[in-house]
Protein backbone atom coordinates (compact mmCIF):
# COMPACT_ATOMS: atom_id res chain seq x y z
CA UNK A 1 0.00 0.00 0.00
CA UNK A 2 1.27 3.38 -0.83
CA UNK A 3 -1.04 5.64 1.09
CA UNK A 4 1.51 7.48 3.20
CA UNK A 5 0.82 11.13 3.63
CA UNK A 6 2.73 13.22 1.17
CA UNK A 7 4.27 16.30 2.74
CA UNK A 8 4.32 19.17 0.35
CA UNK A 9 7.48 21.21 0.51
CA UNK A 10 7.17 24.90 -0.01
CA UNK A 11 9.90 26.73 -1.85
CA UNK A 12 10.74 29.66 0.39
CA UNK A 13 12.24 31.81 -2.31
CA UNK A 14 15.20 32.62 -0.07
CA UNK A 15 18.28 31.77 -2.16
CA UNK A 16 20.00 28.71 -0.77
CA UNK A 17 17.57 28.17 2.10
CA UNK A 18 15.58 25.38 0.51
CA UNK A 19 18.78 23.46 -0.12
CA UNK A 20 19.85 23.50 3.51
CA UNK A 21 16.31 22.74 4.67
CA UNK A 22 16.49 19.58 2.63
CA UNK A 23 14.27 20.56 -0.24
CA UNK A 24 11.99 23.27 1.09
CA UNK A 25 9.74 23.93 3.99
CA UNK A 26 7.25 21.21 4.98
CA UNK A 27 3.72 22.52 4.63
CA UNK A 28 1.85 22.98 7.93
CA UNK A 29 5.06 22.67 9.92
CA UNK A 30 5.60 24.59 13.15
CA UNK A 31 8.97 26.30 12.99
CA UNK A 32 11.18 28.38 15.20
CA UNK A 33 13.60 31.00 13.98
CA UNK A 34 15.91 31.88 16.84
CA UNK A 35 19.10 33.83 17.29
CA UNK A 36 20.67 36.79 19.06
CA UNK A 37 19.60 40.38 18.34
CA UNK A 38 20.61 41.55 14.91
CA UNK A 39 21.12 38.10 13.51
CA UNK A 40 18.49 38.58 10.82
CA UNK A 41 15.52 36.68 12.25
CA UNK A 42 12.84 39.21 11.40
CA UNK A 43 14.34 39.81 7.98
CA UNK A 44 14.37 36.10 7.23
CA UNK A 45 10.80 35.75 8.47
CA UNK A 46 9.66 38.63 6.29
CA UNK A 47 11.48 37.31 3.27
CA UNK A 48 9.94 33.86 3.68
CA UNK A 49 6.55 35.50 4.12
CA UNK A 50 6.83 37.64 1.01
CA UNK A 51 8.16 34.62 -0.85
CA UNK A 52 5.33 32.30 0.11
CA UNK A 53 2.25 34.43 0.61
CA UNK A 54 -0.31 34.51 -2.15
CA UNK A 55 -3.92 35.57 -2.27
CA UNK A 56 -4.89 31.92 -1.90
CA UNK A 57 -2.32 31.40 0.85
CA UNK A 58 -2.36 34.66 2.78
CA UNK A 59 -0.01 35.37 5.65
CA UNK A 60 -0.65 36.78 9.09
CA UNK A 61 2.27 38.42 10.82
CA UNK A 62 1.74 38.92 14.55
CA UNK A 63 4.01 41.52 16.03
CA UNK A 64 4.58 41.43 19.74
CA UNK A 65 6.41 43.93 21.90
CA UNK A 66 9.87 42.95 20.72
CA UNK A 67 10.28 45.53 18.00
CA UNK A 68 7.89 48.45 17.61
CA UNK A 69 5.93 47.70 14.44
CA UNK A 70 6.52 51.19 13.07
CA UNK A 71 10.24 50.63 13.15
CA UNK A 72 9.89 47.20 11.69
CA UNK A 73 7.96 48.64 8.76
CA UNK A 74 10.42 51.46 8.40
CA UNK A 75 13.40 49.19 8.08
CA UNK A 76 11.96 46.08 6.48
CA UNK A 77 10.53 48.00 3.53
CA UNK A 78 14.10 48.83 2.54
CA UNK A 79 14.52 45.26 1.33
CA UNK A 80 13.71 44.46 -2.27
CA UNK A 81 11.38 41.64 -1.32
CA UNK A 82 9.10 43.95 0.69
CA UNK A 83 6.41 44.64 -1.87
CA UNK A 84 4.24 47.34 -0.41
CA UNK A 85 1.31 46.48 -2.60
CA UNK A 86 0.96 43.14 -0.91
CA UNK A 87 0.39 44.58 2.54
CA UNK A 88 -3.27 44.16 3.41
CA UNK A 89 -3.66 42.05 0.27
CA UNK A 90 -1.94 38.74 0.81
CA UNK A 91 -0.03 39.88 3.88
CA UNK A 92 -1.66 41.15 7.04
CA UNK A 93 0.04 42.50 10.12
CA UNK A 94 -1.53 42.14 13.54
CA UNK A 95 -0.17 43.75 16.66
CA UNK A 96 -0.53 41.77 19.88
CA UNK A 97 1.11 44.10 22.33
CA UNK A 98 -2.09 44.84 24.25
CA UNK A 99 -2.80 41.21 24.95
CA UNK A 100 0.80 40.46 25.82
CA UNK A 101 1.06 43.37 28.23
CA UNK A 102 -1.96 42.04 30.04
CA UNK A 103 0.25 39.06 30.74
CA UNK A 104 -2.41 36.49 30.10
CA UNK A 105 -1.53 33.73 27.66
CA UNK A 106 -5.17 32.76 27.38
CA UNK A 107 -5.90 36.15 25.92
CA UNK A 108 -2.91 36.07 23.61
CA UNK A 109 -3.86 32.62 22.41
CA UNK A 110 -7.50 33.59 22.06
CA UNK A 111 -6.59 36.66 20.01
CA UNK A 112 -4.27 34.68 17.75
CA UNK A 113 -6.94 32.02 17.27
CA UNK A 114 -9.58 34.63 16.56
CA UNK A 115 -7.43 36.38 13.97
CA UNK A 116 -6.43 33.08 12.37
CA UNK A 117 -10.03 31.90 12.21
CA UNK A 118 -11.09 35.16 10.60
CA UNK A 119 -8.28 35.42 8.07
CA UNK A 120 -7.75 31.70 7.48
CA UNK A 121 -4.09 32.23 6.64
CA UNK A 122 -1.80 29.64 5.15
CA UNK A 123 1.16 31.20 6.91
CA UNK A 124 1.41 32.52 10.42
CA UNK A 125 4.36 34.39 11.93
CA UNK A 126 4.74 35.44 15.55
CA UNK A 127 7.58 37.89 16.18
CA UNK A 128 8.84 37.58 18.79
CA UNK A 129 7.83 34.80 21.12
CA UNK A 130 10.54 35.79 23.54
CA UNK A 131 8.49 38.82 24.43
CA UNK A 132 5.69 36.47 25.29
CA UNK A 133 8.05 34.39 27.41
CA UNK A 134 9.30 37.43 29.27
CA UNK A 135 5.78 38.15 30.34
CA UNK A 136 5.47 34.64 31.71
CA UNK A 137 6.20 35.53 35.36
CA UNK A 138 3.30 37.92 35.29
CA UNK A 139 0.93 35.09 34.57
CA UNK A 140 -2.20 34.89 36.64
CA UNK A 141 -2.48 31.85 38.80
CA UNK A 142 -4.46 29.12 37.12
CA UNK A 143 -3.94 30.43 33.63
CA UNK A 144 -2.14 28.25 31.12
CA UNK A 145 1.63 28.20 31.31
CA UNK A 146 4.06 29.02 28.57
CA UNK A 147 4.60 25.42 27.60
CA UNK A 148 0.91 24.76 27.23
CA UNK A 149 0.63 28.02 25.38
CA UNK A 150 3.18 27.07 22.77
CA UNK A 151 1.89 23.54 22.59
CA UNK A 152 -1.66 24.68 22.10
CA UNK A 153 -0.58 27.29 19.63
CA UNK A 154 1.44 24.72 17.67
CA UNK A 155 -1.38 22.23 17.70
CA UNK A 156 -4.00 24.77 16.77
CA UNK A 157 -2.01 26.23 13.93
CA UNK A 158 -0.98 22.92 12.38
CA UNK A 159 -4.53 21.60 12.50
CA UNK A 160 -5.67 24.88 11.02
CA UNK A 161 -3.50 24.04 8.05
CA UNK A 162 -1.08 26.87 8.53
CA UNK A 163 2.67 26.83 8.19
CA UNK A 164 3.89 28.63 11.25
CA UNK A 165 6.98 30.50 12.38
CA UNK A 166 7.76 31.70 15.85
CA UNK A 167 10.59 34.18 15.81
CA UNK A 168 12.56 34.74 18.97
CA UNK A 169 15.74 35.77 20.61
CA UNK A 170 16.76 32.52 22.06
CA UNK A 171 19.95 30.58 22.16
CA UNK A 172 19.50 26.83 22.10
CA UNK A 173 22.81 26.42 23.88
CA UNK A 174 21.29 27.62 27.11
CA UNK A 175 18.71 25.65 28.94
CA UNK A 176 16.64 23.89 26.36
CA UNK A 177 13.22 25.35 26.31
CA UNK A 178 10.28 23.01 25.94
CA UNK A 179 9.29 24.95 22.88
CA UNK A 180 12.17 23.34 21.01
CA UNK A 181 10.62 19.95 21.55
CA UNK A 182 7.28 21.06 20.22
CA UNK A 183 8.69 22.58 17.08
CA UNK A 184 8.95 20.67 13.81
CA UNK A 185 11.70 22.89 12.55
CA UNK A 186 14.39 24.82 14.33
CA UNK A 187 16.45 27.39 12.49
CA UNK A 188 19.25 28.99 14.45
CA UNK A 189 20.83 32.20 13.19
CA UNK A 190 24.09 33.47 14.50
CA UNK A 191 26.63 36.16 13.87
CA UNK A 192 30.19 35.95 14.95
CA UNK A 193 32.64 38.77 14.98
CA UNK A 194 36.33 38.12 14.78
CA UNK A 195 38.74 40.94 14.36
CA UNK A 196 37.11 43.26 11.88
CA UNK A 197 34.92 40.83 10.12
CA UNK A 198 31.43 39.68 10.81
CA UNK A 199 30.14 36.38 9.63
CA UNK A 200 26.52 35.34 9.62
CA UNK A 201 25.69 31.70 9.93
CA UNK A 202 22.55 29.67 9.92
CA UNK A 203 21.98 26.17 11.13
CA UNK A 204 19.00 23.92 10.67
CA UNK A 205 19.03 22.09 13.99
CA UNK A 206 15.86 20.27 13.30
CA UNK A 207 13.46 19.77 10.44
CA UNK A 208 11.20 16.84 10.93
CA UNK A 209 10.79 14.40 8.13
CA UNK A 210 13.62 15.44 5.89
CA UNK A 211 17.37 15.31 5.63
CA UNK A 212 18.78 18.76 6.23
CA UNK A 213 22.24 19.99 5.38
CA UNK A 214 24.32 19.54 8.53
CA UNK A 215 26.56 22.18 10.03
CA UNK A 216 26.55 25.93 9.99
CA UNK A 217 25.90 27.53 6.65
CA UNK A 218 26.95 31.05 5.93
CA UNK A 219 24.55 33.68 4.75
CA UNK A 220 24.64 37.32 3.86
CA UNK A 221 22.07 40.07 4.15
CA UNK A 222 22.03 42.63 1.38
CA UNK A 223 19.36 44.90 -0.04
CA UNK A 224 17.92 41.87 -1.72
CA UNK A 225 17.54 40.19 1.65
CA UNK A 226 19.00 36.97 2.96
CA UNK A 227 21.12 34.77 0.74
CA UNK A 228 22.34 31.46 2.08
CA UNK A 229 25.48 29.83 0.76
CA UNK A 230 25.12 26.14 1.41
CA UNK A 231 28.41 24.38 1.94
CA UNK A 232 29.23 22.83 -1.39
CA UNK A 233 28.43 19.16 -1.42
CA UNK A 234 31.25 16.91 -2.42
CA UNK A 235 29.78 13.86 -4.02
CA UNK A 236 31.40 10.57 -3.35
CA UNK A 237 33.16 9.14 -6.30
CA UNK A 238 32.13 5.55 -6.31
CA UNK A 239 33.98 4.93 -9.51
CA UNK A 240 30.92 3.02 -10.71
CA UNK A 241 30.33 4.83 -13.91
CA UNK A 242 32.92 6.88 -15.64
CA UNK A 243 30.39 9.31 -17.01
CA UNK A 244 28.22 9.74 -13.95
CA UNK A 245 30.93 9.85 -11.34
CA UNK A 246 32.68 13.01 -10.37
CA UNK A 247 35.30 14.19 -12.72
CA UNK A 248 33.13 13.50 -15.70
CA UNK A 249 35.03 16.25 -17.43
CA UNK A 250 38.15 14.18 -17.27
CA UNK A 251 38.48 13.06 -20.77
CA UNK A 252 41.71 12.18 -22.37
CA UNK A 253 41.81 15.58 -23.94
CA UNK A 254 44.60 17.93 -22.96
CA UNK A 255 44.32 21.66 -22.73
CA UNK A 256 46.84 24.01 -24.20
CA UNK A 257 48.43 26.38 -21.72
CA UNK A 258 48.96 29.16 -24.22
CA UNK A 259 52.66 29.25 -23.52
CA UNK A 260 54.92 27.78 -26.20
CA UNK A 261 56.95 24.83 -24.96
CA UNK A 262 55.03 24.58 -21.72
CA UNK A 263 52.58 22.06 -23.17
CA UNK A 264 55.50 20.00 -24.20
CA UNK A 265 56.95 20.16 -20.70
CA UNK A 266 53.60 19.00 -19.29
CA UNK A 267 53.69 15.98 -21.55
CA UNK A 268 51.27 17.38 -24.10
CA UNK A 269 49.25 19.99 -22.26
CA UNK A 270 47.23 19.96 -19.05
CA UNK A 271 44.83 17.02 -18.90
CA UNK A 272 41.25 18.23 -19.01
CA UNK A 273 39.56 18.32 -15.59
CA UNK A 274 42.86 18.60 -13.74
CA UNK A 275 43.63 21.16 -11.12
CA UNK A 276 46.99 22.84 -11.36
CA UNK A 277 48.94 24.84 -8.86
CA UNK A 278 51.33 27.50 -10.08
CA UNK A 279 53.55 28.43 -7.18
CA UNK A 280 56.17 31.10 -7.10
CA UNK A 281 57.38 34.25 -5.44
CA UNK A 282 55.95 37.68 -6.03
CA UNK A 283 56.46 38.95 -9.58
CA UNK A 284 57.57 35.65 -10.95
CA UNK A 285 54.81 35.59 -13.56
CA UNK A 286 52.04 33.48 -12.09
CA UNK A 287 49.24 35.78 -13.15
CA UNK A 288 50.72 36.07 -16.61
CA UNK A 289 50.78 32.30 -16.90
CA UNK A 290 47.18 32.15 -15.70
CA UNK A 291 46.18 34.82 -18.21
CA UNK A 292 47.82 32.88 -21.00
CA UNK A 293 45.86 29.82 -19.92
CA UNK A 294 42.58 31.75 -20.15
CA UNK A 295 43.54 33.44 -23.42
CA UNK A 296 44.31 30.10 -25.00
CA UNK A 297 40.88 28.92 -23.87
CA UNK A 298 39.23 31.93 -25.47
CA UNK A 299 41.18 31.28 -28.65
CA UNK A 300 39.94 27.71 -28.97
CA UNK A 301 36.40 28.54 -27.81
CA UNK A 302 36.61 27.41 -24.20
CA UNK A 303 35.21 30.15 -21.97
CA UNK A 304 36.92 30.77 -18.67
CA UNK A 305 36.28 32.26 -15.28
CA UNK A 306 38.78 34.06 -13.10
CA UNK A 307 38.47 34.58 -9.38
CA UNK A 308 40.73 37.48 -8.50
CA UNK A 309 41.65 38.67 -5.07
CA UNK A 310 43.62 41.77 -5.75
CA UNK A 311 43.54 45.12 -4.10
CA UNK A 312 43.63 47.13 -7.29
CA UNK A 313 42.22 44.87 -9.91
CA UNK A 314 42.15 46.97 -13.04
CA UNK A 315 45.61 48.38 -12.56
CA UNK A 316 47.54 45.27 -11.86
CA UNK A 317 45.57 43.03 -14.11
CA UNK A 318 47.14 42.47 -17.42
CA UNK A 319 45.45 44.43 -20.16
CA UNK A 320 44.93 41.23 -22.01
CA UNK A 321 42.85 39.74 -19.22
CA UNK A 322 40.97 42.97 -18.84
CA UNK A 323 40.10 42.93 -22.52
CA UNK A 324 38.83 39.37 -22.35
CA UNK A 325 36.67 40.21 -19.35
CA UNK A 326 35.27 43.31 -21.02
CA UNK A 327 34.52 41.29 -24.14
CA UNK A 328 32.54 38.88 -21.98
CA UNK A 329 34.72 35.96 -22.91
CA UNK A 330 36.04 35.47 -19.42
CA UNK A 331 33.89 35.76 -16.32
CA UNK A 332 35.27 37.65 -13.35
CA UNK A 333 34.67 37.29 -9.68
CA UNK A 334 36.61 39.99 -7.97
CA UNK A 335 36.25 40.66 -4.34
CA UNK A 336 38.03 42.85 -1.92
CA UNK A 337 35.75 42.35 1.01
CA UNK A 338 37.41 40.62 3.88
CA UNK A 339 34.54 38.72 5.34
CA UNK A 340 33.77 36.07 2.80
CA UNK A 341 33.12 32.47 3.40
CA UNK A 342 34.62 30.00 1.01
CA UNK A 343 31.16 28.61 0.43
CA UNK A 344 30.00 31.99 -0.76
CA UNK A 345 32.83 32.19 -3.27
CA UNK A 346 32.26 28.63 -4.40
CA UNK A 347 28.56 29.33 -4.83
CA UNK A 348 29.21 32.42 -6.92
CA UNK A 349 31.88 30.59 -8.86
CA UNK A 350 29.61 27.66 -9.65
CA UNK A 351 26.86 30.01 -10.79
CA UNK A 352 29.26 31.85 -13.04
CA UNK A 353 30.72 28.63 -14.46
CA UNK A 354 27.24 27.47 -15.38
CA UNK A 355 26.32 30.81 -16.81
CA UNK A 356 29.46 31.15 -18.90
CA UNK A 357 29.56 27.42 -19.70
CA UNK A 358 33.15 27.78 -18.63
CA UNK A 359 35.63 24.96 -18.75
CA UNK A 360 38.69 26.84 -17.51
CA UNK A 361 38.87 28.36 -14.06
CA UNK A 362 41.65 30.47 -12.61
CA UNK A 363 41.95 31.32 -8.93
CA UNK A 364 44.47 34.10 -8.51
CA UNK A 365 45.68 33.73 -5.87
CA UNK A 366 45.18 31.36 -2.96
CA UNK A 367 47.09 33.81 -0.79
CA UNK A 368 44.64 36.57 -1.64
CA UNK A 369 41.83 34.13 -1.19
CA UNK A 370 42.96 33.37 2.33
CA UNK A 371 43.06 37.07 3.11
CA UNK A 372 39.61 37.63 1.71
CA UNK A 373 38.14 34.86 3.78
CA UNK A 374 36.85 35.94 7.16
CA UNK A 375 39.18 35.11 10.04
CA UNK A 376 36.62 32.71 11.46
CA UNK A 377 37.06 30.53 8.41
CA UNK A 378 40.84 30.66 8.17
CA UNK A 379 41.26 27.80 10.57
CA UNK A 380 39.37 25.61 8.15
CA UNK A 381 40.96 27.09 5.07
CA UNK A 382 42.71 23.94 3.99
CA UNK A 383 39.66 21.82 4.48
CA UNK A 384 37.52 24.28 2.56
CA UNK A 385 40.09 24.44 -0.18
CA UNK A 386 39.92 20.71 -0.47
CA UNK A 387 36.16 20.90 -0.75
CA UNK A 388 36.35 23.61 -3.35
CA UNK A 389 38.82 21.70 -5.51
CA UNK A 390 36.67 18.59 -5.19
CA UNK A 391 33.53 20.48 -6.21
CA UNK A 392 35.24 22.09 -9.19
CA UNK A 393 36.66 18.78 -10.22
CA UNK A 394 33.15 17.36 -9.96
CA UNK A 395 32.01 19.98 -12.42
CA UNK A 396 34.66 18.81 -14.82
CA UNK A 397 36.36 22.17 -15.21
CA UNK A 398 40.10 22.53 -15.43
CA UNK A 399 41.44 24.70 -12.64
CA UNK A 400 44.58 26.75 -12.38
CA UNK A 401 45.38 28.19 -8.97
CA UNK A 402 48.27 30.44 -8.22
CA UNK A 403 50.01 30.54 -4.90
CA UNK A 404 52.40 33.11 -3.65
CA UNK A 405 55.46 31.37 -2.38
CA UNK A 406 58.23 32.96 -0.46
CA UNK A 407 61.50 31.99 -2.08
CA UNK A 408 63.22 29.77 0.32
CA UNK A 409 66.43 28.26 -0.69
CA UNK A 410 66.72 25.78 2.10
CA UNK A 411 63.63 23.80 1.36
CA UNK A 412 61.48 23.07 -1.63
CA UNK A 413 57.88 23.86 -0.96
CA UNK A 414 55.01 24.43 -3.29
CA UNK A 415 52.31 25.95 -1.21
CA UNK A 416 51.81 27.31 2.24
CA UNK A 417 48.58 25.39 2.76
CA UNK A 418 49.76 21.90 2.11
CA UNK A 419 47.50 22.24 -0.88
CA UNK A 420 50.05 20.68 -3.16
CA UNK A 421 48.63 17.24 -2.63
CA UNK A 422 45.17 18.51 -3.56
CA UNK A 423 46.21 19.38 -7.04
CA UNK A 424 46.89 17.15 -9.98
CA UNK A 425 49.65 19.23 -11.48
CA UNK A 426 52.21 21.65 -10.16
CA UNK A 427 54.39 24.22 -11.85
CA UNK A 428 56.91 26.00 -9.72
CA UNK A 429 58.54 29.31 -10.61
CA UNK A 430 61.63 30.63 -8.93
CA UNK A 431 64.24 33.30 -9.08
CA UNK A 432 67.86 32.41 -9.48
CA UNK A 433 70.92 34.56 -9.51
CA UNK A 434 73.22 34.17 -12.46
CA UNK A 435 75.99 36.63 -13.19
CA UNK A 436 74.52 39.18 -10.80
CA UNK A 437 71.17 39.06 -12.53
CA UNK A 438 67.86 37.82 -11.21
CA UNK A 439 66.53 35.28 -13.64
CA UNK A 440 63.39 33.27 -13.64
CA UNK A 441 63.18 29.54 -13.99
CA UNK A 442 60.23 27.20 -13.99
CA UNK A 443 59.76 23.49 -13.74
CA UNK A 444 56.93 21.05 -13.93
CA UNK A 445 56.92 19.29 -10.60
CA UNK A 446 54.01 17.00 -11.08
CA UNK A 447 51.40 15.95 -13.59
CA UNK A 448 49.40 13.14 -12.10
CA UNK A 449 49.28 10.05 -14.27
CA UNK A 450 51.36 11.53 -17.02
CA UNK A 451 54.95 11.69 -18.09
CA UNK A 452 56.33 15.22 -17.97
CA UNK A 453 59.54 17.11 -18.29
CA UNK A 454 61.81 17.36 -15.30
CA UNK A 455 63.87 20.21 -16.66
CA UNK A 456 64.43 23.53 -15.01
CA UNK A 457 63.98 26.04 -17.78
CA UNK A 458 64.70 29.70 -17.84
CA UNK A 459 61.90 31.94 -18.95
CA UNK A 460 61.39 35.58 -19.76
CA UNK A 461 58.36 37.77 -19.45
CA UNK A 462 57.94 39.81 -22.59
CA UNK A 463 55.14 41.92 -23.99
CA UNK A 464 53.85 38.79 -25.66
CA UNK A 465 53.78 36.84 -22.43
CA UNK A 466 55.98 34.11 -21.15
CA UNK A 467 58.77 32.91 -23.38
CA UNK A 468 60.35 29.73 -22.20
CA UNK A 469 64.01 29.32 -23.00
CA UNK A 470 66.41 26.50 -22.85
CA UNK A 471 67.00 24.22 -19.95
CA UNK A 472 69.64 25.57 -17.64
CA UNK A 473 72.38 23.14 -18.41
CA UNK A 474 75.45 24.79 -17.16
CA UNK A 475 74.52 25.29 -13.58
CA UNK A 476 73.85 23.20 -10.58
CA UNK A 477 72.36 24.06 -7.23
CA UNK A 478 69.79 26.31 -8.85
CA UNK A 479 67.17 25.66 -6.24
CA UNK A 480 69.49 26.64 -3.49
CA UNK A 481 69.49 30.13 -4.97
CA UNK A 482 73.25 30.10 -5.38
CA UNK A 483 73.90 28.13 -8.51
CA UNK A 484 77.39 27.35 -9.51
CA UNK A 485 78.51 26.92 -13.05
CA UNK A 486 79.32 23.39 -13.88
CA UNK A 487 82.75 23.17 -15.42
CA UNK A 488 82.40 22.80 -19.17
CA UNK A 489 84.06 19.61 -20.30
CA UNK A 490 87.01 20.25 -22.52
CA UNK A 491 86.19 19.62 -26.04
CA UNK A 492 88.20 16.88 -27.54
CA UNK A 493 89.49 17.75 -30.86
Amino acid at each position, binding site marked *: MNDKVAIRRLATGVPGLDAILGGGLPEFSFNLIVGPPGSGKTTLAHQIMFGLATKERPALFF*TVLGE*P*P*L*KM*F*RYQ*QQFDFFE*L*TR*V*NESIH*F*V*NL*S*EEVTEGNFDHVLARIMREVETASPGLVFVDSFRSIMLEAPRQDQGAIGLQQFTQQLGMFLSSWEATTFLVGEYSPEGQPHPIFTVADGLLVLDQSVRRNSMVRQMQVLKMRGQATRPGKQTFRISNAGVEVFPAALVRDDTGASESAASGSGRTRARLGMGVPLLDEMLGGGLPSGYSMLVAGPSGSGKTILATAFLAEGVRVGEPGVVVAFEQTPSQSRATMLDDMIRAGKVGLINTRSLDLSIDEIVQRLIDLIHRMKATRVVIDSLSGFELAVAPSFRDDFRESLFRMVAVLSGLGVTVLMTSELEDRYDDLRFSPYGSAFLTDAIIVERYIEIESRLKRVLAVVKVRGSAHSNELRQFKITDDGIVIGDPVHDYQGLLSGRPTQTPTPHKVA
Partner: protein
Amino acid sequence: MLLARRAGKTPDAKAIAAAAADIWPQVMAQLAPVIGVRGVNVLLRRALHLTSAAFPWLQITGDQEGGAALLQTLTTRLAGQGVSSATEASRELLETFTELLTTLIGEALTERLLGPVWAHPSTVPQQETGT
Protein backbone atom coordinates in the same frame (compact mmCIF):
# COMPACT_ATOMS: atom_id res chain seq x y z
CA MET B 1 -11.15 68.97 2.59
CA LEU B 2 -12.13 65.71 4.15
CA LEU B 3 -13.31 66.94 7.50
CA ALA B 4 -15.30 69.83 6.04
CA ARG B 5 -16.92 67.46 3.59
CA ARG B 6 -17.86 65.17 6.39
CA ALA B 7 -19.13 67.97 8.52
CA GLY B 8 -21.57 69.13 5.86
CA LYS B 9 -21.96 72.27 3.79
CA THR B 10 -22.17 74.87 6.52
CA PRO B 11 -20.52 73.27 9.48
CA ASP B 12 -20.27 74.64 12.98
CA ALA B 13 -17.54 73.76 15.44
CA LYS B 14 -19.68 70.99 16.85
CA ALA B 15 -20.03 69.40 13.45
CA ILE B 16 -16.29 69.64 12.93
CA ALA B 17 -15.78 68.01 16.30
CA ALA B 18 -18.26 65.31 15.37
CA ALA B 19 -16.50 64.70 12.09
CA ALA B 20 -13.18 64.46 13.90
CA ALA B 21 -14.75 62.16 16.43
CA ASP B 22 -15.80 60.06 13.49
CA ILE B 23 -12.56 60.01 11.55
CA TRP B 24 -10.11 59.36 14.35
CA PRO B 25 -11.73 56.10 15.44
CA GLN B 26 -11.48 55.02 11.81
CA VAL B 27 -7.80 55.89 11.74
CA MET B 28 -7.45 54.00 14.98
CA ALA B 29 -9.37 51.04 13.59
CA GLN B 30 -7.09 50.87 10.58
CA LEU B 31 -3.81 51.38 12.33
CA ALA B 32 -4.18 49.82 15.78
CA PRO B 33 -4.30 46.21 14.58
CA VAL B 34 -1.09 46.78 12.68
CA ILE B 35 0.98 49.06 14.86
CA GLY B 36 -0.85 48.62 18.15
CA VAL B 37 -3.03 51.01 20.10
CA ARG B 38 0.06 52.36 21.79
CA GLY B 39 1.70 52.95 18.45
CA VAL B 40 -1.25 55.05 17.28
CA ASN B 41 -1.44 56.89 20.58
CA VAL B 42 2.18 57.85 20.47
CA LEU B 43 1.78 59.16 16.94
CA LEU B 44 -1.36 61.07 17.82
CA ARG B 45 0.26 62.65 20.86
CA ARG B 46 3.20 63.70 18.77
CA ALA B 47 0.87 65.14 16.12
CA LEU B 48 -1.07 66.99 18.83
CA HIS B 49 2.14 68.36 20.23
CA LEU B 50 3.29 69.61 16.83
CA THR B 51 -0.10 71.07 15.97
CA SER B 52 -0.41 72.80 19.33
CA ALA B 53 2.35 75.18 18.28
CA ALA B 54 -0.24 76.91 16.08
CA PHE B 55 -3.26 75.96 18.18
CA PRO B 56 -2.20 76.08 21.81
CA TRP B 57 -5.60 74.86 22.94
CA LEU B 58 -4.72 71.48 21.40
CA GLN B 59 -1.99 70.95 23.96
CA ILE B 60 -3.23 67.89 25.81
CA THR B 61 -1.15 66.92 28.77
CA GLY B 62 -1.57 63.98 31.06
CA ASP B 63 0.40 60.84 30.34
CA GLN B 64 -2.33 58.51 31.33
CA GLU B 65 -4.75 59.44 28.62
CA GLY B 66 -5.20 56.42 26.45
CA GLY B 67 -6.79 56.10 23.03
CA ALA B 68 -10.47 56.65 23.78
CA ALA B 69 -9.89 59.29 26.45
CA LEU B 70 -7.50 61.18 24.22
CA LEU B 71 -10.03 61.27 21.39
CA GLN B 72 -12.76 62.38 23.80
CA THR B 73 -10.60 65.27 24.99
CA LEU B 74 -9.80 66.20 21.43
CA THR B 75 -13.48 66.24 20.44
CA THR B 76 -14.40 68.38 23.41
CA ARG B 77 -11.63 70.87 22.68
CA LEU B 78 -12.67 71.14 19.03
CA ALA B 79 -16.31 71.70 19.94
CA GLY B 80 -15.31 74.56 22.21
CA GLN B 81 -13.64 76.51 19.39
CA GLY B 82 -14.91 78.75 16.65
CA VAL B 83 -15.68 77.10 13.29
CA SER B 84 -12.66 78.32 11.41
CA SER B 85 -10.28 77.52 14.20
CA ALA B 86 -11.74 74.04 14.71
CA THR B 87 -11.63 73.28 10.99
CA GLU B 88 -8.13 74.57 10.58
CA ALA B 89 -6.83 72.72 13.63
CA SER B 90 -8.54 69.51 12.64
CA ARG B 91 -7.10 69.65 9.17
CA GLU B 92 -3.67 70.51 10.49
CA LEU B 93 -3.77 67.69 13.01
CA LEU B 94 -4.78 65.09 10.46
CA GLU B 95 -2.14 66.29 8.04
CA THR B 96 0.55 66.31 10.68
CA PHE B 97 -0.41 62.82 11.75
CA THR B 98 -0.29 61.52 8.18
CA GLU B 99 3.02 63.24 7.53
CA LEU B 100 4.44 61.77 10.69
CA LEU B 101 3.42 58.30 9.64
CA THR B 102 4.80 58.94 6.15
CA THR B 103 8.13 60.03 7.59
CA LEU B 104 8.34 56.82 9.54
CA ILE B 105 7.06 54.17 7.16
CA GLY B 106 6.95 55.89 3.79
CA GLU B 107 4.17 57.20 1.63
CA ALA B 108 3.29 53.94 -0.06
CA LEU B 109 2.75 51.99 3.13
CA THR B 110 0.91 54.90 4.77
CA GLU B 111 -1.37 55.03 1.77
CA ARG B 112 -1.97 51.28 2.01
CA LEU B 113 -2.81 51.45 5.68
CA LEU B 114 -4.89 54.63 5.73
CA GLY B 115 -6.34 54.35 2.23
CA PRO B 116 -9.62 52.79 3.40
CA VAL B 117 -10.26 55.78 5.71
CA TRP B 118 -10.06 58.22 2.82
CA ALA B 119 -11.88 55.87 0.47
CA HIS B 120 -15.07 55.73 2.55
CA PRO B 121 -15.51 59.38 3.41
CA SER B 122 -18.47 59.33 5.64
CA THR B 123 -20.26 56.97 7.84
CA VAL B 124 -21.90 59.86 9.62
CA PRO B 125 -25.45 60.49 8.36
CA GLN B 126 -25.88 63.89 6.81
CA GLN B 127 -28.64 65.00 9.16
CA GLU B 128 -26.40 64.64 12.18
CA THR B 129 -24.14 67.30 10.86
CA GLY B 130 -27.05 69.32 9.51
CA THR B 131 -27.52 73.01 9.39
